[in-house]
């Protein structure tokens, strides 16, 4: 397994100041796998508002992927994410039999054979990563929250997407990380570092919660306590969205916020269920943030097979 990271970030994400929201761009190749020209190689590309993810599959199995920050130019971000996924594999674009684009910028994946909604792709990807017992997927992306119900095959049965406001999204979390001058990667752990869970902030609107947080800091609250109060409010909001579509275990969380342990543990507490842990056989590898791109790559394989059969 090879891994490379890039700390440079990308300043075109639209943050007003600071830089505490930056996370690491990276790529990975599962070196226990190889490919040959007779294999069906497909790709899924998920151009999100914050991150762009590309996953390469060999005969419907994950082979490599790349995660980068989406720049101001979605078509370029799609190509860049794919280039990152190609690194160290010897593959090139012409080796791909079928490409599915998904996510907020899916229409900008010019070289995709098809564009699919991220709802379908996240459910499919979660089904691949965790298995058929997954029936509820909470995807918390950079600028939206999706609550998805699916069946044993990863087929979506009902869903809700909330992209009206930043409350609970990765973007909202970045605003808080920036306000408190904490790295986005640390806010989850920090929010759990409180002796007692404070009451949630009264307002979910990020703009107002910011004002409320400043007030709490002036009152002498620690950064940890303020984060805990905010994270709790966001977890309650996410849980309500899940309840709306109906919670059916097992539950998993995908998207960037799946890495925020403060969110994950609080959603578990509010809903009274545990999220499925990363399966052992994939522990060294798959990152839940690539679930959408992975699902897109799986659909690419299925759709390729379908074109072959007709």
């Amino acid at each position, binding site marked *: 397994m090879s891994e490379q990271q890039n700390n440079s970030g990308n300043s075109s*994400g*639209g943050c007003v100041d600071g830089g505490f929201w930056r996370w690491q761009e990276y790529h990975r190749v599962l070196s226990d796998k190889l490919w040959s020209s007779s294999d069906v190689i497909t790709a899924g590309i998920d151009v999100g508002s914050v991150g762009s993810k590309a996953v390469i599959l060999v005969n419907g199995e994950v082979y490599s992927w790349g995660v980068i920050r989406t720049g101001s130019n979605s078509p370029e971000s799609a190509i860049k994410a794919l280039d990152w996924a190609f690194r160290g594999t010897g593959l090139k674009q012409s080796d791909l039999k079928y490409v599915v684009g998904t996510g907020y910028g899916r229409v900008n994946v010019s070289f995709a054979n098809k564009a699919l909604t991220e709802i379908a792709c996240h459910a499919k990807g979660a089904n691949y990563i965790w298995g058929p017992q997954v029936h509820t997927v909470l995807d918390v992306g950079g*600028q939206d929250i999706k609550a998805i119900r699916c069946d044993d095959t990863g087929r979506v049965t009902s869903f809700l997407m909330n992209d009206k*406001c*930043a409350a609970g999204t990765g*973007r909202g979390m970045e605003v808080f990380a920036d306000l408190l001058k904490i790295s986005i990667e640390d806010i989850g752990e920090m929010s759990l570092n409180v002796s007692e869970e404070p009451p949630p902030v009264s307002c979910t609107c*990020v*703009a*107002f919660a910011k004002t409320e947080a400043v007030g709490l800091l002036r*009152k002498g609250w620690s950064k940890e306590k303020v984060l805990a109060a905010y994270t709790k409010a966001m977890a309650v909001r996410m849980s309500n969205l899940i309840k709306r579509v109906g919670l059916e275990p097992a539950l998993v969380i995908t998207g960037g916020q799946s890495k925020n342990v403060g969110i994950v543990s609080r959603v578990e507490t509010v809903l009274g269920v545990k999220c499925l842990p990363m399966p052992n056989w994939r522990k060294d590898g798959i990152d839940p943030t690539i679930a959408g791109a992975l699902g897109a790559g799986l659909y690419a394989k299925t759709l390729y097979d379908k074109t072959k059969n007709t």
Partner: protein
Amino acid sequence: MIAVGFDVGAQSVKVIVLNNGKVLSRAKTFSGFDHVQALQDAIEEALKLANITQADVTIFTATGSSMEASPYNASTVSMMSAIAKAGTYFFSKARTIIDVGAEEARAVKCDDRGVMVDFVVNERCAAGAGAFVEAMARALEVKMEDMGVLSLEAERASSINAACVIFGESDVVSLIHKQEPKCEIARAVYDAMADRVSSMVHRIGVNSDVVLVGGVAKDVGFVSSLKRKLGVDVLIAEFPEFAGALGAALIGLTKCKVNKV
């Protein structure tokens, strides 16, 4: 008979002193993080301006979104009732009264007797309130008081996300990077906010006369966008940010008169 009305808003506290329906004085202080202190300061100032003392006041009436306790033994009224009362006081033909404050927007529908028959609130979302313009002015690096005039220079508006302050901010930053004229971005900000406010108002119907109150009513940029979005003329009261306080005082006055009879 002296009636004092106060409105504890998210950003500022407004106090008005009435003598039998005539405004004697008004005062405004910024809330900061201590609403109680801000209220005391504002009331002291208003009483001083009116040349009276607390003992001269027959009734205190309170309203406002951030009002938790009601000192001065005040009775409380909802912001909806207060702005309905104030709107019809300013303009007797007012049928739709829209209040846009720093953190909340609301609209009430009145019948021809000035009685409230319906209302709608957009609360806990900064996109339809003054906070939206403030955040965008910060992102644009333009002074809040200059935003309105700046926006009037534009002939067209840029396109930004109207639904959320946080997403709107990102849009403004990327528009600046694309070197769009600041006036067009400013106009987009007002159009976006007016869009949200007008769609909220449509929920109860747009019936003339339409009156706009609240601090944002003083912003020429917003007023111009709102008129365009609603497609009707919008009347602005003389001191729109005091509408809540005025309505509260007027309701207090009515209560006293009823009790006396």
